[in-house]
């Protein structure tokens, strides 16, 4: 069974055993506005928790997407190259950024659960 965690910097990570899928939250996508370009990491790239992993750009600005946990990328979402607007249409689903093999499960303990993330978003309004 997969579980979903969040970061304070508005990434989500869906974990299923040793593998996980990462994206940005619907709240983040809404705040960015129309996404016009996404740069995802290539398979094999080693990521460190909290460090830059991907880039998402709106008309106005480029923003960094951080790795929620450390691990090795197994796949970047190839669909985002031709259709970056998937991030706006389905941030938590088809608009995923990359998949990775989690190197240290204990890092998941630092992340937010759904209730804690919802509270964070509510606070910012």
């Amino acid at each position, binding site marked *: 069974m997969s579980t979903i965690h969040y970061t304070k910097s508005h*990434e989500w990570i869906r974990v299923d055993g040793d593998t996980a899928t990462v994206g940005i939250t619907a709240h983040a996508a809404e705040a960015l*506005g129309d996404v*016009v*370009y996404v*740069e995802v990491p290539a398979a094999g790239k080693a990521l460190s928790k909290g460090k830059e992993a991907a880039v998402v750009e709106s*008309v*106005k600005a*480029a*923003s960094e997407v*951080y790795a929620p946990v450390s691990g090795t990328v197994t796949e970047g979402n190839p669909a985002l190259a031709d259709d970056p607007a998937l991030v706006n249409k389905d941030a938590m689903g088809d608009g995923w950024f990359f998949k990775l093999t989690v190197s240290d499960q204990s890092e998941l303990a630092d992340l937010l659960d759904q209730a804690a993330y919802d509270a964070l978003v509510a606070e910012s309004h």
Partner: protein
Amino acid sequence: MSAIPTEPSLKRVPLHGLHAELGAKFVPFAGYEMPVQYKLGVLGEHLHTRTKAGLFDVSHMGQLRLRGANPAASLETLVPGDIQALKPWRTRYTLLTNDQGGVLDDLMVTNLEDHLFLIVNAATKDADIAHLTARLAGEAAVEPLPDRALLALQGPAAASVLSRFAPSIGGMAFMTAANISFDGIPCFVTRSGYTGEDGYEISVPGAEAERFARLLLAHEEVAAIGLGARDSLRLEAGLCLYGHDIDETTTVIEADLAWAVGKRRRADGGFPGAAIIQRQLAEGAPRRRVGILPEGKAPAREHTEITDGTTRIGEITSGGFGPSQGGPVAMGYVDAKHAAIGTAITLVVRGVARPAQVVALPFVPHRYFRG
């Protein structure tokens, strides 16, 4: 994701309440809390302006009257434009220069017969007022108009919308001015703008600004447009943003604004930095502002390094995604020998070298109404 910082204690424009009602997202800009976008979003607002009509609030900009015995001759001591040749009720783009031929501000000047009407940038207006006051002391007086709002209606439907209030407005040519009443609201109108589209800038008493804006927004062609789309529109139109594409360190000639140096002024000089500008007109400038078309889809933002493949040759000063272009667009400065249209250049985006080309500006053709 990296966050966007916000700043406290910002000034507000007269239409602040209306912007909030329309769902604006606000950002700090030049000390003002300004709408960066509305519910339509930057992409939608940009395309709306190119196809219909966009209403922009640019009330943060400075509106000034310059009065004196011969305000045109006085102003010419500070700008390279031929202001004395400007006919009554005509508008011209010009530049306040420094002694190095750099740009203190870019501005619009309209000849209103007994005085000049100036529109200057928000971030520079206080410095401009101080500069004009000090340098023209004894011959011309600056009268700021802080109680006036400034709106722009831009896009192919702008003329037909405004003609419903004032039929004569459709006949105005680009860069001409008139006093026009809209439903009893006295306005000063120029057929101008900063999007590359046909359109108007309308100076309206601040107290009447909201009623005026609501009159325009009642038309289905008109949508409120934020500063986000204003920036992408002006970039596609190849127009400079002060503080980014031009500033005190970029000469008028480096900025490729030689067209704003009047013929008589080239010969006679008589403005700050004239000697440097005259020399660069004759011999060429060491670097030039150019249009830059990145290959592929990755936008190259401001401060992106430009190389010839190995050596640094310049930097991007404005760059992003052009919604009408459907891809990345940019402008920046390159060494003169790399400034020819068609030159292959390299952009270093997040450490990765990406190919690009020097191209002619604008990216999207201007559609001004020449009459």
